[in-house]
């Protein structure tokens, strides 16, 4: 039995089911509120959810049971008395150290918890980075959306901000350096200096079996790094579009990545009304569509956001799940070979995370 946490425009939906079988809604929380992201920490069993109230602002909450009592986490705020306010928390990620979690949000901020999500502290080095005045928001705000840990080493992190590029730390966040060499934004003039800060990364993930390898979905571009994010190589050839948001990997295969291309930045829907997940098993040299068995093949113009694709397991048993702003959630229990409908007619889906049974 696998469990999905589906964050939507109108609440959190917890789904449970067997991969390839039937999924059902087992709980709804934060009715009417925007739930940006929710994850179950497999170490503690606790669920942590990011909720942005239109009235009362962004908050993090935690609970053992998504259908039970939620507690508000402390410390999710910017320094008081400044000229900025926290807009939203985009992503929540489990860290490598005991009790460690990270949360990233707008305006380009990183928080860390050391007690399983009850209390949080702002990463001051990133907040006070001298380049910050040059950071510029993407369409969704100045969002820190990707936090990529290094297996077994809590000192090393890669993060990505839209639109302030990739940032790397080797000292647990005490200092940060940029990791953007090779990225070529088409939305900027060709002669833009290489140290341009306004790089609109859409999603970043690491291949845990080969942690120096990362894959990136860019705002027009798909890239791979083999040097821990210092430099990037274009691997978009063979895709129907190099625009999209989410990205997934197979933990067992460092040459594997999954993308869901959208038509382009002015038409952010699945191309030609066909929903396909694109897979590479050769580190981006070639791509093939998955979804002929089970995904919509006509008149399906879906938008799949960056947090709305997740995976569990590995290899041939890799589970993949994604949700769309149409309210549909699709799943695969066989690494994308076949797909099933896990939910439909939910509110617009912002995020999906999976906890394997």
């Amino acid at each position, binding site marked *: 039995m696998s469990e999905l946490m589906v964050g939507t*425009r109108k609440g959190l939906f917890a789904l449970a089911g067997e991969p390839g079988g039937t999924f059902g809604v087992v709980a709804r929380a934060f009715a009417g509120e*925007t739930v940006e992201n929710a994850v179950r920490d497999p170490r503690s069993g606790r669920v942590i959810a990011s909720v942005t*109230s*239109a*009235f*009362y*602002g962004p*908050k993090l909450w935690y609970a053992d049971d998504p259908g039970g009592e939620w507690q*508000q986490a402390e410390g999710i*705020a*910017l*320094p*008081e*008395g*400044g*000229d*900025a*306010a*926290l807009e939203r928390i985009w992503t929540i990620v489990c860290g490598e150290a005991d009790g460690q979690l990270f949360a990233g949000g707008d305006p380009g901020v990183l928080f860390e918890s050391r007690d399983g999500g009850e209390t949080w502290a702002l990463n001051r080095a990133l907040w006070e980075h001298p380049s910050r005045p040059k950071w510029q928001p993407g369409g969704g705000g100045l969002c820190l959306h990707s936090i990529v840990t290094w297996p077994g080493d809590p000192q090393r992190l890669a993060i990505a901000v839209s639109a302030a590029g990739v940032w790397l730390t080797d000292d647990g966040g005490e200092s940060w350096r940029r990791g953007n060499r090779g990225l070529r934004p088409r939305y900027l003039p060709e002669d833009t200096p290489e140290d341009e800060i306004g790089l609109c990364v859409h999603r970043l993930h690491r291949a845990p079996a080969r942690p120096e390898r990362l894959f990136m979905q860019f705002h027009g571009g798909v890239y791979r790094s083999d040097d821990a994010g210092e430099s990037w190589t274009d691997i978009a050839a063979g895709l129907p579009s190099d625009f999209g948001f989410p990205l997934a990997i197979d933990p067992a295969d460092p040459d594997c990545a999954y993308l869901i291309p959208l038509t382009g930045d002015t038409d952010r829907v699945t191309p030609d009304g066909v929903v396909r997940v694109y897979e590479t098993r050769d580190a981006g040299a070639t791509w093939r569509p998955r979804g002929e068995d089970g995904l919509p093949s006509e008149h399906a113009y879906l938008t799949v956001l960056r947090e709305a694709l997740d995976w569990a397991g590995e290899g041939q048993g890799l589970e993949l799940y994604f949700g769309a702003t149409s309210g549909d959630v699709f799943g695969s229990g066989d690494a994308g070979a076949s797909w099933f409908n896990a939910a439909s007619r939910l509110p*617009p889906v912002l995020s999906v995370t999976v906890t394997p049974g």
Partner: protein
Amino acid sequence: MSSRAGRRLDGMTQPRHDDARPREYAAAMPVVRLRQPLKRLAGDRAEHPLEGATVLELMHALERAEPATGGWILDERGHIRRHINVFLNGERCEAQTPVCGADRVDVLPAISGGATA
């Protein structure tokens, strides 16, 4: 706003709707009134007599008296959140609107906050 300012200039201390307020603090301090979910955060009490010379000072005083409300009405900049409306004796007011001991301040979610699809 004009009636509020006029009352202050006139030195009036009695609220127009004092029947809505407990007698024991009616003449002592402005009262902040909350609805859910703020009421629950504030000790499950709807009415909070607090000291302050402006609406903003009352909101800060509420955060000090009821720390669980911190960050819910005011953001980190000290601004009243965009989709929170504050009323002084029934009329829309601003953060810097003066208050006095006879006043009633209602904190309500704005209808605009529900506009997100």
